[in-house]
């Protein structure tokens, strides 16, 4: 058993995580500090171990076998990067700990939880890698950092630049989007350039939106299909269109999410007629993602009901489809969604027909 006064951490002793979490919630100040620091080290080591195994074995199967006997459980840790532009910092909230005063800490914690619960309850997926990967997030990253990203093992959130952008923890779909990059990396691992990169981006928008819809208990008809609502500050520099507030992207109507004399208008195309050939943005991955985004929206809204049950299930099957390579293009991905719709729901099912019509409508002809 660890001797707390010597501050040994649990990598070298046998203090189990659930006791550390209880200390973090209920202990004295000294005990809380010890527990929080120990949990942070544990999480870092566990994450590093996971990374090592994945890289060493070049696949998830062995790792899954090792952890398959452990019951699924969510393990969230939020770190304060304190405006340093690197993922390091003090632990500020751990799993089960009550909310504090920092709204970004609480939003990140809730968003990680909503994403975990979505994947587990809807698709029985145990965290990002389907093997209980701890969910770590760094908030207050950088200074006026107007971005959030997945660094391969954890999430990073900026505070926004206070001119155009709000804090990046404010949008649940942004959190789901980022964590889904980890899911994609664990499965189909689409190369982040050109069409495979646009698919990678679209998959993150699709499941980021579904995380939001699931948390809000919204059907396809009730959802706004906007990505990043709330990210733009309400100071008149960026406006929405069609009576909606501004967002970063629209799956329902790509190209209409925002309009601004300062930064220009939403550049996303809805169909292949508007496909953009560019060297910027890794070949336009955030621009051309509008096309598969719109295909998903069309399929989901044609089917109606909860989008995660029909179109979402087909898309989830497809990102695990071994017939697809990491360089898949729009057509190859579309073809496998049609096949998977048949496998899941039957020949000429409503789901199959909705998927075929959707891809045809955006100009990806099968």
């Amino acid at each position: 058993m660890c001797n707390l006064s010597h501050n040994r951490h649990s990598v070298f002793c046998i203090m189990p995580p659930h006791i550390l979490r209880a200390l973090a919630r209920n202990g004295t100040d000294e005990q809380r500090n010890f527990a929080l620091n120990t949990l942070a080290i544990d999480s870092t080591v566990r994450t590093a171990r996971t990374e090592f195994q994945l890289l060493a074995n070049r696949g998830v199967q062995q790792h899954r076998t090792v952890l398959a006997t452990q019951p699924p459980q969510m393990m969230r840790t939020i770190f304060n990067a304190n405006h340093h532009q690197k993922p390091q910092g003090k632990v500020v909230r751990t799993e089960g700990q009550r909310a504090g005063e920092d709204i970004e800490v609480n939003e990140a914690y809730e968003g990680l939880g909503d994403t975990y619960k979505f994947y587990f309850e809807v698709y029985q997926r145990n965290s990002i890698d389907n093997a209980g990967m701890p969910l770590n997030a760094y908030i207050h990253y950088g200074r006026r950092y107007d971005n959030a990203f997945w660094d391969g093992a954890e999430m990073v959130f900026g505070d926004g630049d206070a001119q155009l952008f709000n804090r990046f923890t404010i949008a649940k779909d942004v959190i789901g989007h980022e964590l889904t990059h980890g899911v994609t990396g664990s499965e189909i691992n689409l190369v982040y350039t050109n069409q495979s990169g646009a698919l990678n981006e679209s998959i993150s928008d699709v499941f980021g939106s579904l995380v939001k819809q699931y948390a809000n208990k919204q059907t396809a008809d009730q959802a706004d299909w906007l990505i990043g609502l709330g990210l733009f500050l309400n100071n008149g520099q960026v406006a929405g269109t069609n009576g909606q507030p501004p967002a970063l992207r629209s799956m329902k109507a790509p190209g209409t999410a925002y309009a601004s004399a300062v930064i220009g208008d939403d550049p996303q195309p809805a169909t292949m007629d508007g496909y953009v050939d560019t060297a910027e943005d890794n070949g336009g991955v955030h621009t051309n993602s509008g096309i598969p985004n719109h295909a998903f929206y069309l399929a989901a809204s044609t089917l109606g009901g909860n989008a995660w049950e029909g179109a979402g299930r087909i898309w989830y099957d497809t990102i695990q489809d071994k017939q697809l390579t990491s360089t898949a293009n729009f057509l190859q991905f579309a073809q496998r969604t049609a096949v998977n719709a048949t496998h899941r729901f039957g020949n000429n099912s409503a789901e199959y027909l909705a998927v075929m019509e959707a891809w045809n409508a955006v100009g990806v002809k099968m």
Partner: protein
Amino acid sequence: MKILLPPVGGSAVNNGRKYFMRVTLKRDGGDFPVPGLNHPVTLDTDTLPADKASKLEGLVAATHFFALPAVVGTPKVGAVGYFTYQITVDEGHQCHTVELSDFTEEPALVALRDYLQE
């Protein structure tokens, strides 16, 4: 483009400086990019106030910029959506571009990037 060679013997004076330095920052990437925000930003010692010009020159000198490789810093495996930055320093007689990212840790280069972003 103005070209002013470094002084040989006597001095060529421009804004009180011996020769110019033009530093450009271009940012790309990010997971929620807005194309209208990615225009290059250029600082020119010819047009900056003297104290800011000196600071810029000091930051560049601290990086040993012209000895740097074309790319500094390696992104983590599986990372997506991070920013990349291209910094170009043009002194007329020499010009060099270095690409860095959110994963670059060299303190002097990070300090230069952060100053240019302000």
